[in-house]
C-alpha cells in the first residue's frame, strides 16, 4: 500500500500565509462551500454528490429480515462506508484507516442516532419481519470534505428512495412489487447535515469545507451536524489545537445557515427529479390507455 502523498513544506507555508492574508487558494470566501452538485440516478435511492472535486455516490437498498430480538418494533438501518483505492491509492480494502472509522462513526451519529429515519416505519410484523435498509457510500473522488459530502449524499438518497408497499393480512405479509403498487417514500423525521470547520493559525482562523490541501495543513477540525430546525445532532472535535468556546458557538450559527441553504438545495433537486419522473409517469399512463 503506497502512502498518501504528503503536501510539501512550500505548499504548506503558502496556504498558511495566504490564509493570513485572507485568501484561500481557490479564491472562496472563508465561509463558502465549494460548488455543490447533486444528481439522482434512474433508480430510486441513488444520489451522486459532487462537492468541488470530491464525488460521493450513496445508494440505498432494501431487503426483508427478522428484527433484532431486543428491538422488535424497529426495522434495521445501516450505513456502510468503505474507502476504495479509487479515491486515493492510500486506502486499502479491508484495512480501515482512522479517517474511514471517523467517517462511518460521524454518519452513524449524525443520521442513525439522531433518528433522522423513523425505523419503526420499517417494521412489517412486530418481532417477525421488518425491512432492512442499507446505505452504501461509495467514495469516487477524494478532494477533502468527505464527511460533508457523504452526509449530503446519504440524506438526499434517503429522501429520494421509495420502498415497496407491503400488504399485511394477519401473519402473512406480501411485498407488492413496483408494478402492483406505487412505492412509498421513507418517513424522514429531520434532515441532519454536516458542516466541517477547519481551524488554522492556532485556532484564529476557521474555514468551511476545506479541500484536501487545506485539510492536510489544518491544525484542528470541528464537525458540526445540524438540521434546519436549529437542532445540533452531533459535534465532534477530536483534539487538535484549542479553540475558544465562543468561537465554537459561533460555528453552530454558521452551520445552521449553511445547513438551511443545503436543505433548500436538496429539496429543490428532489422536486426537479420528481417533476421529471412524474412527466414520464403521465406519459406512460397515456400510452397504456391508447393501447387499450
Amino acid at each position, binding site marked *: 500500500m503506497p502512502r498518501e502523498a504528503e503536501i510539501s513544506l512550500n505548499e504548506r507555508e503558502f496556504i498558511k500565509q495566504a490564509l493570513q492574508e485572507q485568501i484561500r487558494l481557490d479564491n472562496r470566501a472563508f465561509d463558502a462551500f465549494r460548488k455543490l452538485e447533486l444528481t439522482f440516478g434512474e433508480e430510486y435511492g441513488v444520489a451522486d454528490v459532487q462537492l468541488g472535486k470530491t464525488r460521493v455516490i450513496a445508494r440505498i437498498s432494501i431487503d426483508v429480515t427478522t428484527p433484532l430480538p431486543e428491538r422488535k418494533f424497529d426495522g434495521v438501518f445501516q450505513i456502510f462506508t468503505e474507502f476504495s483505492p479509487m479515491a486515493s491509492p492510500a486506502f486499502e480494502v479491508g484495512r480501515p484507516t482512522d479517517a474511514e472509522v471517523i467517517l462511518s462513526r460521524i454518519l452513524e451519529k449524525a443520521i442513525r442516532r439522531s433518528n433522522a429515519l423513523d425505523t419503526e416505519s420499517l417494521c412489517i410484523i412486530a418481532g417477525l419481519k421488518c425491512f432492512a435498509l442499507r446505505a452504501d457510500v461509495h467514495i469516487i473522488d477524494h478532494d477533502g470534505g468527505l464527511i460533508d459530502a457523504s452526509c449530503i449524499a446519504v440524506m438526499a438518497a434517503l429522501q429520494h428512495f421509495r420502498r415497496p408497499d407491503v400488504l399485511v393480512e394477519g401473519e402473512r405479509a406480501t411485498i407488492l412489487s413496483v408494478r402492483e403498487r406505487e412505492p412509498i417514500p421513507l418517513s424522514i423525521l429531520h434532515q441532519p447535515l454536516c458542516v466541517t470547520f477547519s481551524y488554522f493559525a492556532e*485556532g484564529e482562523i476557521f474555514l468551511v469545507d476545506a479541500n484536501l490541501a487545506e485539510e492536510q495543513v489544518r491544525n484542528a477540525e470541528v464537525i458540526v451536524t445540524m438540521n434546519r430546525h436549529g437542532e445540533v445532532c452531533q459535534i465532534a472535535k*477530536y483534539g487538535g489545537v484549542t479553540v475558544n*468556546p465562543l468561537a465554537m458557538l459561533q460555528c453552530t450559527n454558521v452551520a445552521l445557515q449553511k445547513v438551511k441553504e443545503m436543505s433548500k438545495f436538496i429539496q429543490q433537486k428532489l422536486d426537479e427529479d420528481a417533476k421529471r419522473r412524474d412527466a414520464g409517469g403521465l406519459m406512460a399512463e397515456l400510452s397504456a390507455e391508447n393501447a387499450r
Partner: protein
Amino acid sequence: MPLDTSTYSLALLRLDGRRWNELRRIHAQISTQAAADGSSYLEMGNTKILVSVTGPAEGRQSGQRGGSGGQAKVEVEINFAGFSGMERRRRGGGDKRSKEMEHCVKSAFEGVLLLHLFPHSTITLNIHIISQDGSLLAACINASTLALIDAGIPMTDYLVACTAASSASSTAADNASADDPLLDLNTLEEQELPFLTVGTLGDSDQVAVCVMETRVRMERLEGMLAVGIEGCKRMRGILDGVVKGYGKRFG
C-alpha cells in the same frame, strides 16, 4: 425512566444525591505499575481506569520507527475489561466506538505533548477500562494526562475533560432559559439526557476536545459548554493536587 426528572425539579438532587454542579468522588493515583514508564489509576465515581505509558521509545515496526515530520508518534490502545459494563460481554478490539475514542485521545494529546522533542520515537498509551459508569472519554483523558505526567513527557499543560448535560425542565421544554445544566454524568444520566464531553487545556477556557453525540437545541449548547468548562477547571485542581501530593513524597 432511569432519571426521574420530576423529583429532580423538586429537590434539585440527582439520583446519587449530588447537586447539579457537583463532581463525583475522584480518586487518583500515579506510578501504580512499576514496569511502565508512566502509569495512573483514576476513579471518577464508579468509572475506573488504568493507564500505562510506554515511551518515548523505538516503534514496534522496524519499518516505520516513530512518527514522520520530525516528531514523535502517539499510539493509543483502549481495552474494555469484560466485566466493565452492565453486560458481561467481551468487546472486540476492532470496535468502531473504541477506535473513535482511541483516535480522539490520540489527537487530543498530539496537540498538548511537545512531540518535536522526540523525533523518530513512539509514545504508547495503554488504557484499560476496568469499570464504566459514564463520562468514559473524559475519564480516559484525565487518566492519560496523569500517566503522561508520571512518564515525564513534557506537555504544555494539563489536558482535563469533563461531561456536562442539559436537563430541560419537563414543564418548560421549549423555554431555552429554563434548562438546568448538570455536571459529570453517570451512565443512567447519560442515557437520559443530551450531554457533551468537553476537554480544556489547563486553567484556560480553550477547548481542546468537544464531543457531543445526542440531539439538542442549539440554544442549550452554551449552558452545557460553560458548565463543562467550569468542571474542567475543578478537575484540573484535583489532578494537580494528586501530582503535587505525589511529588511531596520525594520532598
